[in-house]
């Protein structure tokens, strides 16, 4: 099969690293990390297509990775909200 998807994964990973380093706000940094994770998942799944058929182990790893990525995103977002919110503002309507 063509090398289009590995190339796409490499470009996405490079783009997200550039975005990660150039980000001005923390929200952008979270977005960049998520895009980076997607690029790596894409690479893993592309590498799972061997001559012997689909390799289920990388698929399972990517499934695990997606759930870990969403929990880290949630934790990081909560940290950002606490960092920007003035204290005691949480009870406001």
């Amino acid at each position, binding site marked *: 099969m063509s090398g289009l998807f590995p190339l796409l994964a490499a470009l996405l990973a490079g783009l997200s690293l550039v975005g990660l380093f150039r980000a001005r706000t923390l929200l952008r940094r979270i977005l960049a990390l998520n895009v980076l994770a997607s690029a790596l998942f894409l690479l893993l799944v592309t590498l799972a297509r061997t001559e012997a058929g689909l*390799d289920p182990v990388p698929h399972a790893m990517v*499934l695990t990775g997606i759930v870990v990525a969403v*929990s880290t995103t949630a934790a990081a977002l909560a940290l950002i909200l606490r960092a920007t919110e003035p204290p005691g503002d949480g009870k406001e309507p």
Partner: protein
Amino acid sequence: MSAFVIGFDLLLGAGLLWLAWQALFHPQPFAAVVHFMAFGLMMALAWVRLEALDIALAEAAIGAGVTGALLLAALGRLPDGPTPRRLLRAWQRPPVALALGSVLLLSLWLVWVAWQLPRPGLAAEVTAALPESGVRHPVTAVLLNLRALDTLLEVAVMLGAVWLVWSLGPELRPYAPVTALPGLPALTRLLHPLFLMVPAYLLWRGSHAPGGAFPAGAVLGAGGILLLLADGVPWMQRPEHQPLLRLLLAAGLVLFLGLALGGLLLTGTFFAIPLAIAGLAILAVEVAIALSIALMLMACYLFGEPGR
């Protein structure tokens, strides 16, 4: 046929690159988040193209649904307005361009190296072990029997994230919407039966086809988030229900750990599930994990500890 596949791949790749570019560099933070949600949508199409249907289901539920909802909810509390551009002085430009260009080249080179590596794969081994695992779908077998330790630790990581979010303080009360929205409870009522039926269907399918606990839990969690938006789950905020909530949050991890220890007692090996009960045990663990994942996603969505 092959021209169609190439055209499809090219359009999909161009769309993904454009969406990632805009998600990273669009001046408005809100536009960046919407671009990222659309990126998740297109990624699901890419998973379908790569014949990874389990991942497509999980990405459709998590990437396009739950992550987008989390980001949008956080955005409503962050200061709005365009991000100021970072201006570089003239002498800074060449080294920065050099560094960023080398980052791009490095990632291209790494992927090329990974592409050239021999890939024997474990497909044959997994197929050989499939009859002893209690399920007929290889990805479910890897997740819940052959490499169950990974899944156990992943659920533990997620519980750790909830722990972190809740230890930051009391739940952040949402701001009121600008106008009364009578459509929202109606939407919740109409969709809620399906938000229960579809996860059940996915769980049932998981033993023999793409599906399983993770997409099911994510869909259930998205339904729960919809309920939270319509103020449909007041029991989560009540202090007297907190022990029950904590028990349900930990149920997946506890049951999974119990299964592992039971295997240790019965056969002497950690996580060795006897074949006779493997199918049933995996189903029970899957139900518990799906419930726990759904509740954990809802718990993260509150951005703080409820009932305090």
